[in-house]
């Protein structure tokens, strides 16, 4: 049975393999191996096998089941699935069965993919280690004493463990790319607005994007082509036609100019083994015909601080809807405000409370312009810096994360140390630009190191071309079995 998504789809479409067998095998792998990893919060075998059966029926009747025919998929538990429990990794939504499907879920199913379960994540996608899940932490499949990264840690681990070939995550400050880096997979964040967010439970609305995880660039590209596109249900969705990326993956690195971002690839927080692998990857790229230049994004010195004002401010507003009235948990009290307070106190975990508090403070009377308004101006400065850098380089590069996967428990008491995990990924969210993390080798302890590629808005074809070009010389990391 093929291991890649495109191999599965090809075999299912030609009738060589049945979608039911492929999906049943994926469910068996989860059943056998996930107790030690914790990547799935729940699977739904009956629904998945029934959907796989419809894919097989389409093949038998001579209808095309789509480019992802029979491909088993994991969905981060912040994506709504009609009638299937969706918790966002939070106690406040325990038992909630959404009344509609996210647009990305519908698009995957229309393309023949079969979602098999909801993946674990940091509560409401807030975290960099997956330790903020209210249900259980996730272990890194390559070293179970270490974190998988976050907040889409379950999706990254499910792919890295070989349970499913592809999964979806969401990325607000690096929540796809950082866990992809720590787990040795590919993880991609599209241009803001390129993929519909309808049915993505909102964290920070001006930053959130949905994107794919896969074991290689071609599979990530296949999923991207399916989920990208305008959606009238999301007013921030970009109406421009989608340029497919799968056709341009073999164009290579020859002739491309890569800009090494000085501020995102040097400094005290970067581990030596990360920088070693990063420089080795650049040397390989030069041998493959790329030109490497140094570029500077000076305003990124303020990016992390700006992000930790914008994201909490927007989260405090978005999470106001969890008030014990319309869905999820309610803790009873004599009057409605006491009920709201008690429900939120019992339903939210510490990181969510911390960010709601921070955001409420930053938006409160007298502080709005000093904090949120000022952070939005920093955002403009970051965008201007990117524009200047793209006059000198086609694609920008840095490590994805300053460190390899850290130990479970190592950073849970120090929020700022945890926030520093995302220092390389946050600028792309502030700018709304697409970016991708691919594996670029293992460090000394066999832990994966990620290479981060960034491109201008809507330049996904170029981004995927460069990523595939790097992958051709660097290889891919096999799933941990």
């Amino acid at each position, binding site marked *: 049975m093929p291991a890649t998504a495109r191999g599965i789809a090809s075999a299912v479409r030609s009738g060589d393999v049945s979608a039911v067998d492929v999906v049943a095998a994926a469910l068996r792998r989860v059943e056998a191996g996930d107790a030690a990893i914790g990547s799935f919060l729940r699977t739904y075998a009956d629904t998945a096998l029934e959907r796989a059966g419809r894919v097989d029926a389409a093949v038998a009747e001579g209808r095309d089941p789509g480019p992802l025919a029979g491909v088993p998929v994991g969905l981060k538990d912040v994506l709504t699935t009609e009638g299937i429990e969706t918790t966002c990794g939070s106690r406040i939504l325990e038992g*909630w*069965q959404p*009344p*509609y499907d996210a647009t990305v879920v519908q698009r995957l199913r229309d393309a023949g993919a079969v979602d098999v379960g909801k993946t674990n994540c940091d509560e409401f996608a807030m975290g960099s280690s997956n330790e903020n899940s209210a249900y259980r932490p996730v272990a890194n499949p390559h070293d179970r004493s270490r974190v998988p990264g976050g907040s889409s840690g379950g999706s990254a681990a499910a792919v890295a463990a070989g349970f499913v070939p592809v999964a979806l995550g969401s990325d607000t400050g690096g929540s796809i790319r950082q866990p992809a880096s720590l787990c040795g997979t590919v993880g991609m964040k599209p*241009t*803001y*607005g390129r993929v519909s967010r309808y049915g993505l439970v909102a964290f920070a609305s*001006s930053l959130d994007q949905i994107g794919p995880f896969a074991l290689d660039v071609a599979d990530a590209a296949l999923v991207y082509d399916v989920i990208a596109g305008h959606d*009238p249900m999301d*007013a*921030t969705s970009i*109406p421009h036609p989608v340029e497919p990326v799968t056709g341009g993956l073999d164009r290579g690195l020859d002739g491309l100019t890569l800009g090494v971002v000085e501020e995102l690839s040097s400094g005290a927080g970067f581990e030596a083994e990360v920088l070693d692998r990063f420089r080795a990857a650049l040397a390989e790229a030069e041998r493959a015909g790329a030109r490497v230049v140094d570029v500077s994004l000076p305003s990124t010195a*303020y990016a*992390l*601080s*700006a992000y*930790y*004002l914008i994201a909490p401010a927007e989260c*405090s507003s978005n999470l106001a809807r969890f008030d*014990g*009235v*319309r*869905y*999820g948990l*309610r803790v009873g*009290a*004599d*009057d*409605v*405000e*006491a*009920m*709201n307070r008690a429900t*939120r*106190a019992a339903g939210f975990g*510490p990181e969510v*409370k*911390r960010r*709601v*508090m*921070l955001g409420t*403070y930053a938006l409160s009377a007298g502080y709005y312009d*000093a*904090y949120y*308004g*000022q*952070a*939005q*101006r*920093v*955002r*403009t400065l970051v*965008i201007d810096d990117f524009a200047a850098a793209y006059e000198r380089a086609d694609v920008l590069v840095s490590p994805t994360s300053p460190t390899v996967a850290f130990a479970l428990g190592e950073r849970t008491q120090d*929020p*700022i140390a945890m926030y520093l995990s995302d220092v390389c990924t946050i600028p792309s969210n*502030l700018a*709304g*630009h697409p970016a991708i993390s691919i594996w670029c080798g293992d460090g000394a302890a066999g832990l994966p190191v990620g290479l981060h590629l960034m491109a201008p*808005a*809507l330049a996904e074809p170029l981004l995927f071309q460069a990523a595939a070009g790097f992958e051709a010389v660097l290889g891919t990391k096999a799933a941990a079995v």
Partner: protein
Amino acid sequence: MRITREDVVHVARLARLDLDDDELETFTGQLGDILDHAARVEALDTSGVEPTAHPVPLANVLRPDERGRCLDRDGVLAQAPEAENGYFRVPRIMDAGS
């Protein structure tokens, strides 16, 4: 600028969060630390710089004024902690005597 315990109590009220004594103490310290980091942003001279609200600006997103698909009311209410006669039900909002 340091955050005081009174600030945290006030913000918790605005955020509709009951916090216990341990949480108040922890957040007083942590919010102060995080805002110290933010102070570098606060101090930056951004005169003449426009704020960015949407990184890929879209102006006047319009659609035809037609009725679209709606969620099923009973299905939505079935997910509520308490519903009655087609409405969400909540504890009392005002004192009976006022």
